[in-house]
């Protein structure tokens, strides 16, 4: 069986950017696949299975990332990872703002 590398461009639309929660969820999902997973931002390419690596992207809203998946289950992994990135991107920030307190 030939191993294919599949790619897909995704734009971060969440106002908070690709922050720690989506990063952790992404790495956790990526680790469930045998395939190698990378995310690229211009000439930066990081391991999609490592949260510490993913945080290096510091991808703010509007950043275009390229998802790169290669391995035996790439065809399954790619749409699942794209969906996670897209869903988190559409998700509003669920951390409730704290009331302003004056001291």
């Amino acid at each position, binding site marked *: 069986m030939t191993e294919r590398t599949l790619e897909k461009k995704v734009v971060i639309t969440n106002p908070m950017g690709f922050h720690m*929660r989506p990063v952790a969820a992404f790495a956790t999902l990526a680790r469930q696949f045998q395939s190698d997973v990378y995310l690229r931002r211009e000439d930066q390419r990081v391991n999609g299975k490592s949260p510490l690596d993913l945080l290096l992207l510091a991808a*703010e809203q509007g950043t275009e990332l390229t998802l790169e998946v290669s391995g035996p289950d790439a065809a399954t992994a790619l749409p699942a990872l794209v969906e996670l990135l897209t869903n988190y991107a559409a998700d509003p920030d669920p951390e409730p703002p704290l009331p302003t307190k004056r001291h």
Partner: protein
Amino acid sequence: MRMSDFVLRDAIIPDLKATSKEGVIREMVESLLAASAYKNGDVEEVVRAIQKREMLGSTGIGRGVAIPHTKHSSVDRLIGTIAVSRTGVAFDSLDGEPVYVFVLLVSPQDRPGDHLRALENVSRSLRDDSFVGALRRARTREEIWTLLEGGANP
């Protein structure tokens, strides 16, 4: 940006006393606020906000490192502290391993870019095993501060 740009020197904890997740968060928040311009800040409120964030998913992101954080309306710039545990603390990490190095961040409500750049900076340093090793060997606030000023891969 270096970690020394947002870590408050006087808030650094070279030897955490706490051995539980909640205890670590409280010890770090107390130290952070005491060293900050927000000395009268509400420790409990910030602790609760950070715990609420942890309930959405642990910030123990593996390799013995955790980055608990929250936004808080009382700060007007991103501030943080770093702490080292000698024994390791169970923190519901992604990889199930105990955490030895903690970086706690409190950021203003409306600066997602600053927050992302701080996370980038922290992760750049903490993915460097020799840097983490040096942090864990450091015995004093001064030693840790010197490491932060130097950054990873000097």
